[in-house]
Structure formats: C-alpha cells, structure tokens
C-alpha cells in the first residue's frame, strides 16, 4: 500500500533537529538537562568555593548574586524540569502501550522552546551580566530601578521556556487519557505514569500563574508599567503571590515524577508488587491538590496576619500525610522482598531517608512562629536541597540507571555506578546537613561572605568539601555514560526482570514502540503475563501497517522566532519583535494549512524485524 506523497526521512543532525519521535525527544531533553545540570553545578561549586573560608573575596557582591540566581534558576527550570520531561517522554508511552504521544509535533515544539529559552537566559552571562535578583526575582529589587538587563533575560528566557513546558504537559495529559492500550484502565497504570499524569495537571495550572507574573514584571521593566511600582499605586506583594502560586506547585512538579521512579525501581528490585497501589494513587492526587493550597508558607514573614499564616500552616503540614503514606508504602514493598542492590536501587534506597529528612525540616518550617527565625537563613537552604537533591536528583539518577538500557540498548556500568552513588551520596550529606545548623546559628542565605569566629567556619568548610565530593561523583557519572555509549549494544529487552510494559519490547525501543498493541490484563501488565507462563504480551490487534507522524523543522524555527522576539523586547528593538513573532506565526500558518498525513511502516518490514529479533 504505497503512499502518493514522498516519505521524508532525515539522517544525522537533521534527524535530531526535525524529530517528532518521543524517544528521541526524550534523549534531547536528557542531554540538554544534563548540560544545564553541569552548568548549574559549576555555579554551585563557585559559590561554595567563595564560602569555603570567611572574608574571602573571590566572587563577591553582584557577581555572587548572579551566581546564586543562575544556580537556582538553571537547576530548577533548565536542569530538573527537562530531566523529568526526558524520562516522561522516554517512558510513559511505552508504559501505557502506546505507539506515540498524542501530539508529536507539539512535543517537539515544547522541547525547542524550552531549549531556546534556556539558551537565551544563559547568554546573559556574555551580554552584560546574568540576572542577579535571586531565582525568585522579587520587585522592587527585580524592577528596572534596582536591577540591570540581566533580569530581562530572566523574564524572557523563562517565559519562552515556560510555554514549552505547558504544551508538553497538555501533550502528556491527552496521551495518558486517550491512548492507553486496551485493558489498561487508570487503576492498572504504572505509578510513574500516574505521577506523570498528576505532574502534568500541576504544570497545566501552575505555569499560567508564572506566565502572568512574568508578563507583569516585563511590562513594568520594559514598558514602564506600574504593577509593582509603589509610587503609582502598585503592590509588590502581588508578585509574591503570583510567583508562589506557581512556585509551590512547581516543587511538586519536580518531586512527583521522582516519586514515580522510586515506586518503579523499588518494586522491580524487591521482586514484589508495589504495596498499597490504590493508596499510592490517592496520595499522589491529594498531594497534587494540596500543592495549590500551601503557597503562602513562603510568605509567612510578609505580614499577612495570623489568620492567613494559620490556614496555610495547617495546609502545609497536611501535605506531609499523603507523603508519609508513600514512604511507608515503599518500605512495606521492600519488606519481605528479594532485594537486589543494583545502582538504581541504591539511589532509590538512598532517596528514602534523605527525602524524609528534607520533608521533616519542611514541617518544621511550616510553623509560622518558628519560620520567623528560619526564614531567609541557611536552614531553608538546607531544607530545600534535601528535598530537591535528596528527592528529585536521587530519583533522576535512579531512573537513569534503570531505564538506560531501554533508551540506549546498553547498561551503565554497575561498578562505576556504585562509586558514583557513594561519592555523591556522602558528598550530598556533607554539603547540606551542616547548613541546617549554620542557619540555626544565624547565617543568612544569599550572602557572599561571613565573619570569622562566629561559629560558622567549620560548617561552611565541611559544606564546601561535600560540594567538591558531589562534583567528583558527577564526573564519575559522566565517565560512566561515555563508557556505556562506547560499548556495542549489550542490553537485552528485559535486563531487570521488569514488571511493566516497557520491558516487553526490544532495547532500545524500536521506532514504532509496539509492533502490535498489547492487551493488558492487570496491574504490572508484563509481570502478570510472566506469572501466567507467557514469554511476552498478548497482542490486541493483528500485525498491520503502522502510521507514523512526519518529521518537521517548524518546531525549531518557531522557537527561534520567539528567541529573536525575546531579544527585540529586551533591547527595545521592536522591529525584531515583529520579525520574530512573524516567523512564529508564519510557521503556525504553514502547519495549519499543510496537513501532515504522516507515513506508514509496512507490514512486511515489521515481519522482517520480528524474524530478526
């Protein structure tokens, strides 16, 4: 059954620039996220070097402010989020038995928007200075009176990136709702898919608040608006509300997928079904809902009053309950299981106490009277690094070791993996545990130095040593990646004796994912078949031609258009804005007018591949 139009296939770089394949897009997200993770890590090392001893003058004043702003902004928006999206792209369609995501073109667009936004933000280093008002960019400090052009890079870079994230979330929601394999009801979905689903819902509702906040800051800075200009009746608390209505759900956007990864890894390497599946799902939904009801806990010291503080204190503490349910469920999953301490499982097991410590200090912070002491000290820095690094980053490393074979057809080396784990794990605790005490002893955050003999010397010293150790661990991981990539394909379809659908197809996954859509008969779909004595999944349809979407260069060009417009806004060159937005609109027009009918992989090719496998 030949098609009358030519099949567009690209190779090499053009393949990657035009791909609409969720697996390749996943790898792009992981690569970009890793790059920004290294950048953010370097910024952290420089911060810690400056704070190694009191009264140092290596990176001071505005330089230090740029380092700390970019460290936070890069790590949260350009490292953690894309790494999370990378795994969601690589894994979720496979876990639900789908051949593709709902909107492959939009998926690609989401990646390129994220990437170009991140690029825009980081170009600030070379164009007059990075943003320096903290990752939270509070006006009036972030307004045009007290901040230079760096904050404009922050505003426009995050705005462009944010649009990419939002459309990526819509894509995953529709994919999960509409494209599950026959038999896969919602309560038979793997936990990683569930957490991806709730995370995407959080993104859907949180990012518009950030969008509006950034628009208002941009209008104030670039067009002389008065949202936050007190002399003209503006109100700086408005920014704080908008930012944190986004910002609090944002941290759950980061951590929920990590929770999902831990659920997969712990159950696979305990050879046991996840304990309390329904309560895990319910807990995830509850965390997602409560995430929107707690944002004022970042504003306890603003002066909103005891009633507001009390309401949000209770809501914040309440979130600890479903989170605790999850922790106990992971422990009960391991209890009585046949536990294998692969590197992936080491990360998952290391996650549990680390994240719990972070959560515990979070509950401490949730008490407003106590928070008046903790706020803006290193206690807070200790808390959030425990949950973000001990939670999100550990989860991402676990996911990397677990899903590497499915993505690349090779395993990461286990020996190097264990060196990676131990150096990073020990380094992490050395870095951040002392910071709680530094905060309790009065060291404020976002300061570039401290006086000697105030009791802060030893804590800062140990913290910096820990940071170096984390750097060593990261280098070991990079070596592991290089070692793994340089080997020939060595991984089987199912190296871990997995439980979920992604392990029922070859490694790496073929372009079309499933030659035949599988029939799902229960939770842990693949395990169910294995326990019934089958070698693989029962197909739900006969072998037939598979429709694939066409690649396209338009997502990249659309993103470049907005990138150009961003520069236009920052430098008040409005012709550039018109050109940039015009490019984007023309691409949208082309996409609307020329319908993509895709191409087909014919049945004969599938039969040939099946014979080879």
């Amino acid at each position, binding site marked *: 059954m030949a098609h009358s139009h030519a099949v567009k296939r690209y190779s090499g770089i053009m393949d990657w620039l035009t791909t609409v394949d969720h697996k390749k897009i996943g790898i792009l997200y992981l690569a970009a996220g890793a790059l920004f993770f290294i950048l953010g890590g370097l910024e952290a090392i420089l911060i810690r070097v400056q704070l190694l001893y009191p009264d140092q003058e290596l990176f001071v004043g505005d330089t230090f402010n740029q380092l700390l702003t970019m460290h936070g902004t890069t790590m949260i928006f350009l490292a953690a989020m894309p790494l999370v999206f990378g795994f969601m792209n690589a894994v979720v369609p496979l876990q639900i038995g789908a051949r593709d995501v709902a909107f492959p073109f939009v998926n690609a667009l989401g990646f390129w928007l994220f990437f170009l936004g991140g690029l825009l933000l980081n170009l600030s280093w070379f164009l007059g200075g990075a943003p320096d008002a903290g990752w939270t960019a509070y006006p009036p400090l972030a307004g045009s009176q007290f901040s230079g052009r760096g904050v404009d890079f922050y505003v426009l870079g995050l705005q462009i990136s944010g649009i990419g994230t939002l459309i990526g979330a819509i894509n995953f929601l529709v994919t999960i709702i509409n494209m599950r394999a026959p038999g896969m009801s919602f309560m038979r979905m793997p936990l990683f898919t569930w957490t991806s689903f709730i995370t995407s819902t959080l993104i859907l509702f949180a990012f518009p608040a950030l969008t509006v906040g950034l628009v208002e800051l941009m209008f104030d800075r670039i067009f002389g608006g008065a949202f936050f200009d007190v002399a003209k009746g503006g109100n700086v608390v408005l920014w704080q509300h908008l930012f944190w209505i986004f910002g609090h759900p944002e941290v759950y956007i980061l951590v929920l997928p990590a929770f999902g990864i831990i659920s997969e890894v712990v159950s696979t390497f305990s050879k046991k079904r996840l304990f309390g599946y329904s309560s895990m799902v319910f807990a995830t939904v509850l965390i997602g809902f409560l995430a929107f009801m707690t944002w004022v806990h970042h504003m306890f010291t603003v*002066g909103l009053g005891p009633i507001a503080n009390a309401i949000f204190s209770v809501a914040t503490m309440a979130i600890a309950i479903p989170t605790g349910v999850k922790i106990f469920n992971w422990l009960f999953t391991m209890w009585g299981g046949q536990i294998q301490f692969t590197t992936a499982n080491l990360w998952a097991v290391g996650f549990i106490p680390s994240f719990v410590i972070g959560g515990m200090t979070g509950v401490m912070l949730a008490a407003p009277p106590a928070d008046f002491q903790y706020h803006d000290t290193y206690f807070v820095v200790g808390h959030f690094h425990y949950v973000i690094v001990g939670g999100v980053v550990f989860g991402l490393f676990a996911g990397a070791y677990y899903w590497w074979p499915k993505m690349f057809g090779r395993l990461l080396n286990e020996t190097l993996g264990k060196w990676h784990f131990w150096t990073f794990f020990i380094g992490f605790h050395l870095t951040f545990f002392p910071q709680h005490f530094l905060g309790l002893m009065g060291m404020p955050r976002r300061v570039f130095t401290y006086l000697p003999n105030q009791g802060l010397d030893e804590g800062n010293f140990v913290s910096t040593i820990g940071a170096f150790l984390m750097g060593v661990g990261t280098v070991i991981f990079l070596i592991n990646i290089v070692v793994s990539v340089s080997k020939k394909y060595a991984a089987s379809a199912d190296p871990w004796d997995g439980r979920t659908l992604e392990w029922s197809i070859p490694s790496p996954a073929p372009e079309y994912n499933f030659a035949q859509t599988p029939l799902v008969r229960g939770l842990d779909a693949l395990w169910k078949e294995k326990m019934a004595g089958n070698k693989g999944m029962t197909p739900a349809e006969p072998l037939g031609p598979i429709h694939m*979407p066409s690649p396209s260069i338009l997502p990249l060009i659309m993103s470049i258009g907005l990138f150009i417009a961003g520069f236009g806004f920052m430098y008040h060159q409005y012709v550039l804005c018109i050109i940039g937005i015009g490019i984007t609109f023309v691409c949208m027009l082309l996409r609307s007018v020329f319908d993509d009918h895709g191409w087909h992989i014919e049945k004969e090719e599938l039969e040939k591949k099946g014979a080879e496998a």
Partner: protein
Amino acid sequence: MSAHQDPSSAEGRPYKHEGPKNHYITFILSILLTMFAFAAVIYGDLDRGFVLWFLSILAIVQAVFQLVYWMHMKDRGHAYAILYMVMGAIIALTAFAAAVYWMWW
C-alpha cells in the same frame, strides 16, 4: 496519529442535534442577565456590597449557561473537560482570595 475512520461512528447520517432552541434560549438569557447587571449599576441607589455580589452571581450564571449549552459541556464525553475547568476555576478563586484578603493592610 492515524486519521482513519472510527468504526463506531455512524456513517453518512447527519448528527441528530437537539435543534437550535437551547442555543437561542442561552442567547436571550445572556442578554437578559447582562441587562440586569447594567441596570443594577445604572439605577444607582442600591447598597454597594449587595450590587457587587449580585453582579458576581449574574456573571457566574451567565458563564455557566454559555459553557454548558454553547460549549456542549452537558453532552456525554465531557467528563475531563468539566473536571479540568472546575479545577482551574478553584485555583483562580484562590488567586482572587489572595487579591482580596491578602494584598492590602
């Protein structure tokens, strides 16, 4: 994704719409609700607090009618649409609460 025909949908027969009656009713109702709102403001002797609540309720009622009838939210297959719109509305309401109660003091 494939654009091939869904075998479960009826071929050829036009959609048996319930007719434009409900749509015209929604239109007239919207006009009436709008007129009441304008009237409450123009005929100026009412208590300010009452007028603000009245206007809010009129707006919400009109919005719900338009969502349900013009956007087919009452038809089957709209469970997700309703769920997500309601969630969005709840979050918008928390933003309103912040703007009203926790902004000026």
